[in-house]
Structures are given as structure tokens and as C-alpha cells.
């Protein structure tokens, strides 16, 4: 009888291990002329994969457009009639494209990823947060806890959410400048602040949903 897994604190996301996995190739390679699935370099950075410059600022429409054209190229459905090795590679490439897209489209994930690219630990907990920020967070959490008991809970929660949204927006603007100046130490703090607000927004959202679906 063995023991189940124990969590470790660090983790990373990669699909490269699968290549050295346990797959058996049943069919000879069949290259699709012109746009081959093998044109995708799975080892390049997410930015390069999407043909974008490494920059925190990115145009969402451009990202979406690149994502769609990449998926058109690599999605396994394009290789439903191809050999199994090609299907396997397509699955890996499409997985990588999906991971990259999820990371890049989310401004917080994108910031964390950029720090990783720069060799900085984005979850460095030794960084101390400003005391006034922490005080403000405690206050906001108290408001969140009390909101469901208020006379108009939905209004209270919406107000709280709007406040968190506004603060986050300002922090993202700061993050933009910090990345432009390559001020990564400041970016680490901003990211942690954003994580506080994200948690707050998420919990306010959950409570709002619960209110809506109770009726």
C-alpha cells in the first residue's frame, strides 16, 4: 500500500515531458503540404509562438487573431485523417497554444510569466507588503464578510466589486509602466497587490451569484 501524492510548493507548466512518454507510432508520418503542424516550435516562448514582441502591453484583438490562426494550423481535427504521430504532435502543439493563450490573455498571468522569463521569482514571499495596503485589505475583507447581512446585500457587494475593479485597473496601469522601465522588483509587489484584489473580486462575485440563484 503506497501513499498518495504530497503537494510541493513550486510547480511549472510544460508539455515537453509527454514527448518522452509512452506513445507508440502506428502510422508513417504524412506531412501535410504547405502548412505543416511541425512548423510550430514547442520550445519557444509564448510571445514568440504568437509572433508578438515581449511586451506587457498587447493588443487583445491581435492575440485573439493569432490564436485563431494557430489553432487552425494545429488543432487535432485538422489531422483526423492523418497518421497517429502527426495527430499526437498536433495534440501537443494545440495544448501548448492553448496554454500560451490562457497565459497571455490574462493580464495577471501574463505579468507572472514575464517575470519568469526575466528570471525573477514572481511569488517571492519574502517581499514585504506596505502596511497601509495590508490595513486597507483587512478593512475590505471585513466589508465583504458583512455584506450578506446588509439591508441590500447585492448593492453592497456590487459596490465592493466596483471598488476592487477600480483599484485593479490603476495597479495594471502601474504594472505597465514598471515593465516598460524593467523595474521588476516593483512589479513583484504590484502583482501581489493584484492577487489580493483578484481574490476579493472573486469572492464578491461568488456571493453575488449565490444571491442571484437563491431566488
Amino acid at each position, binding site marked *: 500500500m503506497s501513499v*498518495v501524492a504530497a503537494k510541493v510548493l513550486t510547480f511549472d507548466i510544460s508539455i515537453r*515531458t*509527454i514527448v518522452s512518454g509512452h506513445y507508440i507510432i502506428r502510422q508513417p508520418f504524412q506531412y501535410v503540404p504547405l502548412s505543416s503542424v511541425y512548423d510550430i516550435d514547442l520550445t519557444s516562448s509564448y510571445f514568440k509562438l504568437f509572433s508578438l514582441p515581449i511586451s506587457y502591453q498587447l493588443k487583445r484583438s491581435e492575440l485573439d487573431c493569432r490564436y485563431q490562426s494557430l*489553432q487552425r494550423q494545429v488543432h487535432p481535427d485538422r489531422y483526423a485523417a492523418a497518421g497517429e504521430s502527426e495527430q499526437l504532435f498536433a495534440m501537443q502543439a494545440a495544448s501548448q497554444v492553448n496554454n500560451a493563450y490562457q497565459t497571455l490573455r490574462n493580464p495577471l498571468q501574463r505579468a507572472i510569466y514575464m517575470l519568469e522569463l526575466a528570471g525573477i521569482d514572481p511569488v517571492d514571499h519574502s517581499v514585504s507588503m506596505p502596511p497601509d495596503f495590508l490595513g486597507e485589505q483587512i478593512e475590505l475583507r471585513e466589508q465583504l464578510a458583512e455584506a450578506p447581512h446588509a439591508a441590500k446585500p447585492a448593492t453592497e457587494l456590487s459596490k465592493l466589486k466596483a471598488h476592487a475593479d477600480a483599484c485593479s485597473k490603476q495597479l495594471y496601469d502601474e504594472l505597465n509602466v514598471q515593465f516598460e522601465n524593467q523595474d521588476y522588483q516593483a512589479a513583484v509587489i504590484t502583482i501581489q497587490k493584484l492577487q489580493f484584489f483578484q481574490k476579493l473580486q472573486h469572492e464578491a462575485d461568488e456571493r453575488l451569484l449565490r444571491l442571484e440563484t437563491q431566488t
Partner: protein
Amino acid sequence: MSLLQISEPGKSKVPHEHRIAVGIDLGTTNSLVATVRNGSVEVLSDEFGRLLLPSVVRYRSDGNAEVGLDAKLTASDDPSNTIVSVKRLMGRSLIEVQADETRWSYQFDQLDSAVPRIKTDHRSIAPEEVSADILRVLRERAEKTLGGELVGAVVTVPAYFDDAQRHATKHAAKLAGLHVLRLLNEPTAAAVAYGLDQTKQGTVAVYDLGGGTFDISILRLEGGVFQVLSTAGDTVLGGDDFDHLIALWILEQAGLKEQGFASLDPSTARRLLIQTEQIKQTLSQQESVSFDVNLGDAGNWSGELSRGVLNELIDPLIQKTLNTCRHALHDADIRASDIDDVVMVGGSTRVPRVRELVAKLFGARVRTNIDPDQVVAIGAAIQADILAGNKPESDLLLLDVIPLSLGIETMGGLAEKIIPRNSTIPVARAQEFTTFKDGQIAMAIHVLQGERELVADCRSLARFELRGIPPMTAGAARIRVTFQVDADGVLNVSAEEKSSNVSASVQVKPSFGLSDIEIAEMLKASIQYGVKDKINRALREQQVEAERALQAIDAALAADGERLLSEEERQNIYLVRDELILVKDGDDRIVIKNTIEKLEAACSEFVARRMDAGVRQVFTGRSVKEL
């Protein structure tokens, strides 16, 4: 098995020919098959011109299965041998089935099998076999109408189907002799059907209320790409429940509330439900209906039901679906007002009250111009045509998501999510775990599905062990667990200890699904019921496969054996190769198959190295832009 024979880029091109592929909507109440013929979609009918095949199978005492309308019509005479709503049993455990509020009119066998087996007079039958019998009729219908063998089928499943239910559906198709090109989510299929005539850009909600399941999907359509933003649903809520509520109302009116539904004998109950279904349908056309029902020992009861009363009865159920819609909107991170269009699917969306409340929630126009019973099969047929390669120029691409989070059990009975729900598939994620005890040499990987934090609240999909971890202090080992979900939503899990490279993997088979032996037995049974030469054919196929494997391995060893393998590794492969030579001319195809698989396993590392080397060769000295 042929080991990675790399051919020149651009050399191999398959000549174009029309390949017959179909879309199948395997529904709780009715099933349909459709295809694309001469550029237009066609739902195929039986010899009497009927499109819908009732998903009802009656097992006669001689073992013959009667599928469809005949079975449905005689259902009330022989309820214990007539299987209805089998879709609700697919991929579910006996315990879950018995906890279900549905009142099954047939009995279950209490066997060792984790799968519910239905007791009939002839023998006990697995849900997969019942579904396979339905699929077989549709396959035969298609082959007869289209005059050829099918290259494959796209079979639709509710978006909310979990891994176990998808596996069960795939097994059923296999038993019916169908090659599954893709399992497609029903709402996605419906959206594809509507994309047929209109080029659309925007956000669409697909509201699918069928006989037995409810699904809501939020899709984004842009430039030919259908992206599922989120899905949610309820696998045990549908129009059947409306019928049931009407039946309960009748019992109450007739003064039989106390005795309830359970007091009726099975055939009376079945007849009553058929009648209440008709009452419901009539009320979609008119404001009220008078009727006369037989309540068995309690005699006849006649009365009148108005649409207003029906609305009151079913409003709580509709509200339940609307709450699920709100969850889906929340997951997609959009508001109800962001929805541009609502596509209605499933016969139950003919109920005026459903249309009214859904339109009110989304504040958008509700689309009903394609028959809600056919829309899913039509979409599946369009996708099957593309996947079979008949439309190489097609611009349509479907990006689906997984409906439920996937993860593993960690210490303390906690579920650790590795892939969150609503991730676009295919998707691969890896996470590192470590040992809990000093000198721990094995780790149990318990694969889970669900949103809850505690293992006990999640669904257990599979367990396997990683053995041979070198003894280390607790927390020192680095075990990478990788989840890969393919485009069908089917999961593969592998675990690897990084310092020693020991690894283990499974293609996840649900814990409570059919065991391999059961599957083999079912396959054997389906062969026995067929013609005898199928057995010979299966054997012959296996022998051919063995020949092919031997040729491939010999060629691969000759080319790269020295370069990529150590002497010991080569010897290991030769050992299994010689074993296959010995067994391949025997008449036991299972032995041959197992030996081929053994050879595949022995070669897996070799294949991986060849693939790496092959890919490296292609990339060496070339950038993406050059290619």
C-alpha cells in the same frame, strides 16, 4: 505498428474521394443519424420515412433485440425487458443509479460489476450494450441509404458528460462497429448547424433541454471559429421530468397522492407517462386539454389541465435550468445582456413557457427555426463531413472545453486541481508532487474529477501506482504528474520521478466503468451474435497487425538500433520480438494482441527517442519563418 517511418515532406498526398461519414445524436428519448450528401445535410429516415428512432430497446426472451418504435409501443406490455432512457445509465455506478430519483421500470442485477447491469429475461445487459444496439440500427440505416461502409461517425454527448460517461459512449460505439471520429458536445453541434446558413460573429447561448438532460453552453463565434467559453448542465433534468410532474398532479387530483407513483404497476405507470407526454405536447399548441387516463386498480380518471397550471408545475424546474445558465455566464465572465443569440435545442424547448423564461433571462431573440429535435444531428453531420476529409477547404474549427476540473488526491483527502474546468481542449498540464514518508518507494495516483475540495465529494476516475521511486527523505522526490486531455475530452495521466526516470501512466478508465474483461466479453458476445467469419476476420487482422509490427521493428532497429539503444535495451526488444514470432501464427488473437502490446511497450522509449531525433532533424538549422 510501424515505427516512425519519416517520409519526405510533401510527398504523400491522399487522392480525394468522398468518404461516407455520419453524425449521430444519441439521445435519451430519440436518436437520429444525418449525413452530408451532395453538399447538403440530410437526416436519414428508415424505410417508413421516420427520422426519429426512439431510444428504446426491448430484449426478447430469445435474445433478439427490438429497437425503436416497435419496442416503444410494446413497452408498457413488457416494461421489465424494455430499456428506456438508457443514456441516464451510461458511465454511472449502480449506487448513483439507485440514488437517482428516476423510477426505473426495469430491475438491476446485483453483480460484482461496478456497472449497473439491467436484468432481462434473457440475460443481464450493460447500458453500453443497449446504446450499442441503438447505434447499430442507425449505422445499418446509414449504410443501407448511402450504399457503402462508413469511415466513421461523430457522436454527440451532453457537454456536461464527464469522463466516465464519454468513455461509456465510446465503448458503445465500438460495440456497434462504429469508428468514432469525434465525440462532440451537443450544444456545439447545434451551434454548428445554425452556422450553416449564417456567418455569425458574436456570443451565443445554446439552451438544450432534451428528454433527460439539460445543457447550457456559452459560445463565442468569430471568423469561423466556434469557441466554447463555458458549459454547465444537469444530467438528470429534462422533459421526462415535466411528464412525471404532470403524472403526479393527476395522481393528486385523483386522490392518490398518498399512494404515489410507486403504487402503480409498471405497465400502468409507463402508459400514464406516455399519456402525460402527449398532454404536455398538446399544451404547447393549445391553452388547455381534457383527457381520460387509466390508473390501473384505481380505475379511470378524467379531467382538464390548463397551460397556466402546467406552467406552475414546471416553473421550479425551469428556474433550476436558469440558475445553471447564470453559473455558465459567471464562468464565461460575461453578463446575460452580452448574449446576442439564444439557440434552442431539444424537444422540450417547444414548451412555450420555456421559451418565454429563457428569452426573458437573456433579453435576446430565441432561435427556433431549425427543428430542435434534428439540430444536433445536423451539426454532427457537418462536423463528420469535415473530419472525414471531405471539405479540406473548410474554415470551420471547433474549440471545446472540458466541463469539469481534473486533478489528483493529495495528503489529507484533498483534491488538487491540475486542469481547471472550462479549459480549452486539447490541453496538457503538469504539476510536481513529492513523497510524504522517508524511504517511500511507491506513490498512489488517484485521479479525480469535480469542483469540490474534498476527495469524497469528487468523482474517482482511476487509480494507479508509480513504483520504483528511489528511497529518499520525505519531500525530496520530484514526481511530475502530467494530465493530457485530447480533443474528445478523454484523459491520459502519466507520472514520472525525475531523478530516476521511473514512470507509469494510464489512459483513464473510470473506476466504476466496465473492466477490460467485461469489455472483451461484450465484444466477444457481439461477435458471437454476428456471423462466424467475423471471428476469423478478427484473428486475421491481428495476424496482419503482428506482421506489420515485426516489419516495422526490424526496419527501425536496422536504421537506428545501434545509434539510439544500449545493448541491453536492444536485447529486451529482441526478446519480445521473438515471442511475437512464436505466437503470431496461433489461433488466439487475444494472445497475439497482448504480445503486440507487449512489444509496443518494450519499444516505447525507443519510439520516443526516434521521434525526438526526427523532430530535431526537421528543426535543425531552420527557423519557423523559413519553413
